[in-house]
């Protein structure tokens, strides 16, 4: 099963243009580099969390699901920072990373992939004289983002099959079936795209 990331809604954040959301995201990323002191960083993190859960109405559960995969990396980075610097530096890095991930999650959950692709296509317009098709580039990026969860789903399915057959820890043995399935899915997807007319894009 291929799962999308966009969560439908009618909040102010959902209704802001994708271009503005991306600009704000890059602005926050830049501000985070220069922002100094734990208190301003903490305020920024709390603010982003508030916008995510309340203004965009995406809820605390989704915020947690966006944060959870980060925990192991945060722990490693914090330990490294404590070792080479001090606790304050570790907390600062954690705040920055959490702020970045939450901002990216906010944009991803509140923006349709097609709206994001339209922005990418507009950004690629100057490359048209060089023979680059902005629509194709945008579609390629959107499709790539779109299919990342599909690969994870394939890994989960293969692991389930292996566990059902008693292969509990055969992580390496999962590689070939996962690769085979992903290549097979790519083959079928390319047929489906051709059948839907994508081979005549930009050629009419």
């Amino acid at each position, binding site marked *: 099963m291929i799962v999308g990331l966009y969560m439908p809604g009618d909040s102010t954040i959902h209704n802001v243009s994708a271009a503005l959301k991306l600009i704000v995201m890059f602005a926050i990323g830049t501000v985070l580099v220069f922002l100094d002191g734990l208190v301003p960083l903490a305020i920024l993190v709390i603010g982003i969390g508030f916008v995510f859960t309340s203004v965009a109405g995406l809820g605390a559960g989704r915020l947690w699901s966006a944060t959870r995969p980060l925990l192991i990396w945060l722990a490693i980075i914090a330990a490294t920072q404590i070792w080479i610097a001090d606790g304050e530096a570790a907390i600062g890095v954690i705040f920055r990373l959490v702020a970045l991930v939450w901002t990216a999650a906010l944009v991803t959950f509140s923006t349709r992939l097609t709206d994001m692709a339209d922005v990418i296509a507009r950004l690629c317009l100057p490359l048209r004289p060089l023979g680059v098709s902005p629509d194709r580039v945008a579609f390629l990026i959107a499709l790539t983002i*779109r299919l990342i969860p599909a690969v994870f789903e394939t890994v989960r399915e293969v692991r389930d099959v292996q566990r059902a057959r008693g292969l509990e820890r055969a992580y390496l043995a999962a590689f070939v079936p996962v690769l085979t399935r992903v290549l097979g899915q790519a083959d079928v997807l390319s047929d*489906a*795209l051709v*059948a839907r007319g*994508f081979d005549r894009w930009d050629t009419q």
Partner: protein
Amino acid sequence: MIELDHVTVRFQDRIILDDISISLTEHRIGVIGDNGSGKSTFARLLNGLLLPDQGDVTVNDFDTRADGKMVRSQVGFLFQNPDNQIVMPTVAEDLALGLKPLNLSKDEQAHRVTDVLERFALAHLVDRSAHLLSGGEKQLVALAGVMVTEPDILICDEPTTLLDRRNATHVMRLIADLPCQVIVVTHHVEHLNDFDRVLVIGNGRVSHDGPPQDTIPQYLETLA
């Protein structure tokens, strides 16, 4: 109209379809046959997804080998597994995606999407995640994704295989009622009773060809 002229398809040393010549002009045509008989290969020839090793396939006088893109602009294709056909995250986005190659205005795109959503009673799913829908709903979205481009001909490759009986009947009824020419490959022969013509494919050839009242019993007899 689709015409196959002495079409042969091979896979390595095996002949999948053997010297088939046939004209497909009826409104609703069913294609049945055993697993591995070449039904899906036959279907994929009709919109140029697969090219014959020998012979020609023409659709409305366009050759699938020389004018494949033109053929596919007139022939829609519905796959067995809608998960392989639905590309974008939400229903509305996926329907709109099919219109991208047509270079329509935003207004015309929105109009077509709204129209097809209403026609297939999918308006309530417009912002839902397409891949989290039920099997029946997904197949309807996939069908709507093809029909939004308004093809002259629709090819369906086992569109009900993954569906329960209720959803299979519903999807097949919608397909059979479409105004365009419809060619359906299926194992569910009971859905073809009202069709205009049924082809039976066996051993790489069209073994039976005629109205469903004749061909379906003939096919079922071969299974006994």
